[in-house]
């Protein structure tokens, strides 16, 4: 006879083995994105279709740059975990591991490229601003 309570026997046996941590991250990031996304759509939509100078001008300003960095960072973490949920529903074994790693890698790569682009546009904007004076 095992002297284990019902709770002890159930602990760690959920599908995720990590409790509700994953779900809670999706909830918290969803609330953050609910504030970020509408503003980002406005800023990005305005910039799309403009000249390169105008695009650099827009994203070299602090608010659009920080807003875009935050939206991409939180959006890509939200995507990585959301895609992982989908993959875990449909794929098994090595295929599952491979696809989850791919989703995580894509989301980090996209985030890094966005940060690089924003940093470079900030520097170009700074140089152009200095030359104008």
């Amino acid at each position: 006879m095992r002297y284990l309570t019902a709770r002890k026997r159930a602990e760690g046996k959920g599908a995720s083995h990590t409790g509700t941590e994953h779900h809670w991250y999706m909830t918290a990031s969803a609330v953050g994105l609910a504030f970020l996304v509408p503003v980002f759509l406005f800023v990005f939509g305005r910039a799309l279709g403009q000249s390169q100078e105008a695009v650099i001008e827009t994203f070299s300003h602090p608010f659009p740059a920080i807003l875009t960095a935050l939206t991409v960072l939180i959006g890509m973490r939200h995507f990585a975990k959301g895609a992982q949920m989908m993959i875990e529903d449909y794929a098994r074994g090595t295929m599952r591991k491979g696809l989850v790693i791919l989703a995580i890698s894509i989301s980090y790569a996209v985030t890094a490229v966005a940060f690089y682009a924003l940093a470079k546009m900030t520097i170009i904007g700074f140089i152009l601003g200095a030359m104008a004076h």
Partner: protein
Amino acid sequence: MAEAKRVERPLSPHLQIYRPQLTSVTSILTRITGNALIVGVILAVWWLLAAATSPAYFETANAVATSWFGDLVFTGSLWAVWYHYLAGLRHLIWDSGKGFDLPTAEKLGWACVIGSVVLTVITIVLV
């Protein structure tokens, strides 16, 4: 009683016999829109990278981003992001333990479908 008569039972819920309902279809759409958004995000970030790189690279990326293909991806992504947004708010309502009765759940489903189209049109007009 050893030879219990086996009854042919349908395997439920199975996609082939599962009657599509507003609640199930809107739930599946949440997953599809959320994951499909990666396409629009990659195009947008590539376009930002090109803008930060050189005039020639920007010309290439901008030509793609503002072509019929770019319009298709960005307009589709715009609807997808609004749909996913409203469906996400619906999940926040459900997480609080409210809105599970069928009339409310159906209303929330229609709110996602109609609301996403309305918000897409408003965004295109405003931006």
